[in-house]
């Protein structure tokens, strides 16, 4: 989730608040193809990814593209909110308000590790997360296209002068982040169910994770995510489960107060970005 934020932020400096909806699209789409259309697993997976990619593409073409010329970041961020509301509405029409789920990727006995019970699905989630971090790290730091994406966010004009087609890059970043979000949604649905309005909560959590870890750093987002998750569970266990969601925001505030660049964020990069 947090990783998805980073992709778009890295290439456009926009914070896409509809990112949570991509996750929901992933979860619900997977349910639809798997349970309603009865496709075999790999095919359902691919179909879901395609749907999410198209959603990301449409979102960029229809809402961000026309605003790109104005270069008003705040406006674009607000548009992402409206897109998220729109997607939520559409999903509600299609799927109704009930939560959905489907069986985990692999059946089997949960593993017991140091007294903790870990289902196989959780292992899948962790595996997929790490795989995406590694791939995205390699993409942004080792390939020219990834660097071009970063370049677009630092200075779009300079990027154009380098012969980079900025509008294509922005589109690509939306597609990739939609796909990453959808994969996340596909992976977590068997554990935590998925309903049409789960997006905003996911977005807030993911956003906190991204900020806590340092915006633009995938490693950071994952670390932030784990940290939030652990603190949340502790709060739910020891204090009251009602405080669970508030804690994420509390941590976000504290990080912003004391280490605005995030735990993994470099101060230097933050400063240079502002210059």
């Amino acid at each position: 989730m947090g990783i998805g934020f980073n992709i778009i932020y890295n290439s456009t400096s926009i914070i896409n608040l509809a990112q949570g909806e991509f996750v929901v699209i992933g979860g619900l789409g997977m349910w639809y193809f798997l349970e309603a259309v009865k496709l075999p697993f790999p095919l359902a997976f691919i179909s879901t990814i395609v749907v999410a990619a198209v959603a990301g593409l449409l979102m960029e073409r229809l809402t961000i593209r026309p605003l790109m010329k104005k270069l008003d970041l705040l406006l674009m961020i607000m548009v992402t909110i409206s897109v998220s509301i729109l997607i939520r509405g559409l999903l509600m029409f299609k799927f109704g308000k009930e939560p959905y789920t489907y069986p985990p990727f692999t059946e089997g006995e949960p593993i017991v590790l140091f007294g903790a019970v870990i289902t196989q699905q959780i292992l899948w989630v962790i595996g997929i997360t790490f795989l995406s971090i590694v791939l995205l790290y390699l993409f942004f730091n080792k390939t020219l296209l990834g660097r071009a994406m970063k370049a677009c966010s630092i200075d779009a004009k300079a990027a154009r002068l380098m012969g980079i087609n900025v509008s294509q890059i922005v589109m690509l970043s939306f597609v990739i982040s939609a796909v990453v979000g959808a994969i996340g949604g596909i992976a977590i649905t068997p554990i935590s169910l998925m309903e049409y309005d789960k997006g905003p909560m996911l977005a807030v959590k993911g956003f906190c994770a991204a900020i806590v870890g340092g915006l633009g750093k995938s490693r950071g987002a994952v670390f932030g995510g784990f940290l939030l998750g652990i603190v949340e569970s502790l709060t739910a266990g020891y204090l009251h489960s009602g405080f669970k969601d508030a804690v994420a925001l509390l941590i976000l505030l504290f990080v912003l107060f004391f280490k605005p660049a995030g735990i993994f964020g470099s101060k230097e990069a933050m400063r240079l970005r502002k210059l």
Partner: protein
Amino acid sequence: MLRIKNLDVHYGKLYILKKVSLHIKKGELVTILGSNGAGKTTLLNTISGLIKPTSGEIVFEDRNITGMEPDKIVKIGISQVPEGRLIFKTLTVEENLLLGSYHRYKIGRKKEIKNDMETIYSLFPKLKDRRKQLAGTLSGGEQQMLAIGRALMSKPKLLLLDEPSMGVAPNVVKEIFVHLVELLKSLSLTMLLVEQNAKSALKIAHRGYVIETGRIVLEGSSEDLLSNKDVQRAYLGRDLDAEVII
């Protein structure tokens, strides 16, 4: 090599460029002089395709490039070193240079690009020492060299330079201008140099144009312009009439 004919550019109803015509021959260094807001940067950005002209024609090597997209223009060999350098500050020096070669980058060409990067490093040895540093941590002069190096990585035939002396220490300006003359010879480049620092620009340029409120008001060889009274008064900080009276 480059021929601009009756170029008009305006933002809304406001004219920025009016009937601008100029030409640059292969191997020439041509400078455009003018004060702030005269339209120099707009002219370069129009050549680079960032701004679309209202009317007029830009022809590069017998090819009409008017209104072409910026990425195509870089591809056919026109590269710009933008005003204020606009380097990618949070990327390393090396990544900046690499991005300069974006349009010709292919898997099979890695070696060729590596070689080109070494060429840039040999031209600007200071950059080599700092290849792994974030570009934003360089000094103004080094950033300017990086911006020039980055533009050269696209293997341009025509290099557009927008105020390379801006925000750079005076002694470093000299160094940069020396580099420009070297580049002109060693890479057989053609250059269009926009400068406020008229004296230094005319010293290294072959020819020059003077632009005032969007119009070309004067053109000639550098020697002619250097000795022209109006140019001296307006851009070289000398008032000949006043001198005569004293």
